[in-house]
């Protein structure tokens, strides 16, 4: 039977809508499954969510009635149920009375403890109509958003004020209350143009009538409509919209029924760099840039919320506002250009990065030292001069009017000014890119110097803040440290930066000198743990299996890029039968070695054939994989290590490890320790879960 719920609110941001729909779907599904109102494997069972900035919608095809359930209530044991004369004891009579049943409905039922007097009761399945009103309020009040608010005279927190909750089941109103708001049986169309009540009986009708009243409930449909209208607008110009998926996503969320309009701005502003132009358009007004080939055109696109701009007012109004903003941007561009970045950088002394961690001048200086260290480690030693220049200038744009007006241009603005001042490509590009990536789907810096600068900048912030004993917890991360750490990991993986991470940490901590409160070794441990967590997150985000992730991370974070390669090596072999056997063997080896002290192999004590063979195989393999480990070819190394399988099996079949002679026994343990050491250079195999085996 059809269920439709709409929570109608004032305008929610895109992130809130996304978060809420995910939770709604998951929690609603869980409750329905547990209440027996939906069967995931069968139809009916479909549950779908939809959203706009004003609506969270959930649709479900539900089972009307729960199945009847038999419930057994146990009473006294049979052994005390009957008196010697065969009559029932008072204990049994009392049991029957307490449940309000006649004695003749009592039965003897056995369970694992023995035979008992019991009553079997059939619990009639309840209807969805009865169950839902009891579970829905908690699902709705349990939604959490990135930032919650209160309104009116209510303590209740939500994303934005709730205006009404519409809920029907099989066409009939489903009544319940959520924090003083009772559900209603009608929805409404677009807030400005079609606010009158709309009664609907089915989901299909709901979707259709809302569309008629200027609400498209599917995000996908709205986005497609925007793209389609853009194409139509641009066809006569033979131009394209400059791709900006993020802005399109925001627009598709922010409007319920999109229309697209085209506007123009004076040509003279085309002299501004494209980044500045597009930022001025995007921020504040949410306008899209238009290009023809690679050239920017003096026009823009905007999206309205259900207004078709019949008189061209929307386009004219936006033109006016944009012109003013571009005029400001041009003014800033000219003003900023009067002072060279190098001069500007001198004033960074006065800009505090963090009270205890000094100014941005101090930060630039630290970035420089760390970057000069890292550039040597990743084989780019020849680029020292460029690194030095880029590090010294990278924060100077914080003092420009442009960044003050458009904070999102930080880095980019500096890069553009450096380009204008004729710094080399390597230098301006590095400055331009050093805040990247700002999220998991933002690209890493394209240049190596940019990448090094970005890693050092982010790591400096992480070490500094963690070194001040500022707690980072689930909701509290005011400095964006997690994002920074993820950024570092992404860069290292993307740019294949091969270096020892703990050593870089040592350097960064040392460069801070006495600024930090925490003691150095403790801080290093905290940072490593912090990065381990971030790597886990990134790897699982990339779709790797948890046990494989644990296997490569269990020995801690060293060379981050190598960890990734090891993981890929494991992943490519995960379904190989030889690999599975090796894992089981490795686990066996681990178990035997548990709690054993370290021993050394004495070749002369290898008396049996099986152990001599294992020793030889191991030595050969070890020598073969050693260069592969140092060059990072873990895939090949892994495949070679696999070949040890038969020698170990043979060893276990024919050689008794726990020999009577202590010296022999220790020697065999030592041999296994060597094998185990070989394995551990790739991963902790004991973390890998083999199907059908429980750890």
């Amino acid at each position, binding site marked *: 039977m059809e269920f439709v719920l709409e929570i109608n609110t004032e305008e929610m941001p895109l992130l809130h809508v996304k978060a809420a729909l995910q939770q709604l779907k998951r929690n609603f599904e869980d409750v329905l499954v547990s209440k027996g109102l939906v069967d995931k494997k069968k139809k009916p069972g479909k549950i779908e969510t939809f959203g706009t900035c004003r609506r969270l919608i959930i649709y479900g095809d539900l089972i009307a009635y729960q199945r009847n359930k038999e419930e057994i209530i146990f009473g006294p044991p049979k052994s005390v149920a009957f008196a010697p004369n065969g009559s029932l004891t008072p204990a049994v009579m009392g049991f029957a009375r307490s449940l309000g049943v006649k004695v003749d409905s009592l039965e003897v039922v056995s369970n694992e403890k023995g035979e008992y007097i019991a009553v079997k009761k059939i619990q009639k399945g309840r209807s969805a109509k009865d169950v839902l009103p009891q579970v829905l309020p908690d699902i709705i009040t349990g939604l959490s958003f990135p930032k919650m608010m209160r*309104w009116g005279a209510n303590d209740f927190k939500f994303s934005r004020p709730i205006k009404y909750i519409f809920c029907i089941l099989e066409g009939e109103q489903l009544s319940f209350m959520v924090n003083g708001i009772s559900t209603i049986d009608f929805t409404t169309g677009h807030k400005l143009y079609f606010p009158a009540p709309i009664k609907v009986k089915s989901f299909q009708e709901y979707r259709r009538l809302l569309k008629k009243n200027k609400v498209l409930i599917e995000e996908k449909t709205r986005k497609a409509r925007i793209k389609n209208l853009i194409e139509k607008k641009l066809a006569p110009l033979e131009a394209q919209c400059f791709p900006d998926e993020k802005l399109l996503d925001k627009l598709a969320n922010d409007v319920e029924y999109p229309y697209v309009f085209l506007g123009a701005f004076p040509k003279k502003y085309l002299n501004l760099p494209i980044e500045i132009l597009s930022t001025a358009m995007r921020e504040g007004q949410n306008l899209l840039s238009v290009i023809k080939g690679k050239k920017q055109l003096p026009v823009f696109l905007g999206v309205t919320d259900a207004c078709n701009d019949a008189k061209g007012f929307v386009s004219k109004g936006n033109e006016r506002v944009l012109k003013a903003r571009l005029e400001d941007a041009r003014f800033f561009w000219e003003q900023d250009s009067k002072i060279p970045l190098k001069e500007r950088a001198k004033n960074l002394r006065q800009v505090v990065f963090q009270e205890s961690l000094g100014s941005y001048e101090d930060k630039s200086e630290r970035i420089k030292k760390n970057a000069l260290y890292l550039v040597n480690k990743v084989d780019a030693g020849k680029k020292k001069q460029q690194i030095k220049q880029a590090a010294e200038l990278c924060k100077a744009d914080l003092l420009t009017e442009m960044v003050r007006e458009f904070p999102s241009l930080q880095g980019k603005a500096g890069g553009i000014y450096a380009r204008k001042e004729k710094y080399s490509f390597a230098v301006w590009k590095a400055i331009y890119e050093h805040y990247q990536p700002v999220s998991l789907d933002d690209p890493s810096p394209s240049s190596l110097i940019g990448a090094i600068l970005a890693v050092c900048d982010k790591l400096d912030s992480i070490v500094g803040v963690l070194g001040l004993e500022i707690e980072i917890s689930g909701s509290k991360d005011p400095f964006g440290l997690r994002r920074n750490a993820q950024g570092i990991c992404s860069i290292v993986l993307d740019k294949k930066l091969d270096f020892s991470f703990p050593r870089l940490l040592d350097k960064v901590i040392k460069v801070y000198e006495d600024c930090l409160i925490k003691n150095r070794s403790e801080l290093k441990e905290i940072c490593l743990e912090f990065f381990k967590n971030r790597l886990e997150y990134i790897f699982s985000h990339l779709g790797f299996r948890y046990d494989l992730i644990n296997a490569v991370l269990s020995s801690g974070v060293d060379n981050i890029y190598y960890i990734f390669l090891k993981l890929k090596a494991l992943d490519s072999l995960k379904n190989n039968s030889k690999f599975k056997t090796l894992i089981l063997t490795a686990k066996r080896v681990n178990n035997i070695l548990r709690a054993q002290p370290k021993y050394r192999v004495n070749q002369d004590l290898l008396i049996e054939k099986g152990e001599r063979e294992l020793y030889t195989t191991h030595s050969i393999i070890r020598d073969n994989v050693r260069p592969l480990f140092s060059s990072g070819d873990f895939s090949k190394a892994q495949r070679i290590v696999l070949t040890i399988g038969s020698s170990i099996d043979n060893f276990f079949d024919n050689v008794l490890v726990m020999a009577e002679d202590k010296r022999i026994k220790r020697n065999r343990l030592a041999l296994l320790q060597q094998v185990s050491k070989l394995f551990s250079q790739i991963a902790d195999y004991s973390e890998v879960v083999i199907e059908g085996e429980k750890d």
Partner: protein
Amino acid sequence: MSIQNLIMNLQKYWAAQGCYLAQSYDMEVGAGTMTPDTFFRVLDKKPWRVAYVQPSRRPTDGRYGENPHRVQKHFQYQVIIKPSPPDIQQWYIQSLAALGVNLKYHDLRFDEDNWESPTIGAWGVGWQVLLDGLEIAQFTYFQQAGGIETFPVPVEITYGLERLEMFLEGKDDIYDLQWSDDVSYRDLRIEEEREFSEFNFNHADIKSLQKKFSLTSEEAGKLIEKNLLFPAYDMCLKSSHLFNLLDSRGAVSVTERVKKIAQIRNLVTKIAQKYTSREGSS
């Protein structure tokens, strides 16, 4: 069409919604939010409805009368309603209709923008209201003021009068606006903007500003001790404006900025605490 017409229409509209029409506060403030009619009244538990014009000064926004939209003094129309009514957005939308905006032909948007004022320890959740891409209002549900959780929750609507009038008159230059049928914004304001820009950026005496800042903030502290909360709050407003002037003179380093803002916030927070315990609320 004129600014004064706009003001009269807003007054009529919000009076009809039960707002008491306050007069502008007689001190330099950065925004309508800072006057006692908002600051104190959002703290207690009593219902409250007020609307008023507030001249607002932001010394660093001065442009010597040469920029068509930036001025160091502008006029806000401030509405505070506590508790926030369920259909307050609708009330606001109707106020635009009352001003003659035909929404059929315009794009009205509530775009996420959470407001925060560290100086008075306040933040809220809401939107900037965009009309054809022009920001014409700030719409905020106050969550905290003076460091105290607000309850019931007040809603604040701040109209930027010049912006709105530029929209209504279809003008590109603030100075081309009409204040009344006979008096233009240029006539009234341009000389003032030139002189104050000179003052804010070049002539305000830094030493004297610093001295005054320490005097007013010290006095605020003493007045708080004596439970004279309204005068104490006035002293905070004075300090805040002096700070803004110091800022426009480029005399505030970043560390000092943090320190001075914290100094004012601490005073304001104390006032808020005393006020609420005196009013027996939150």
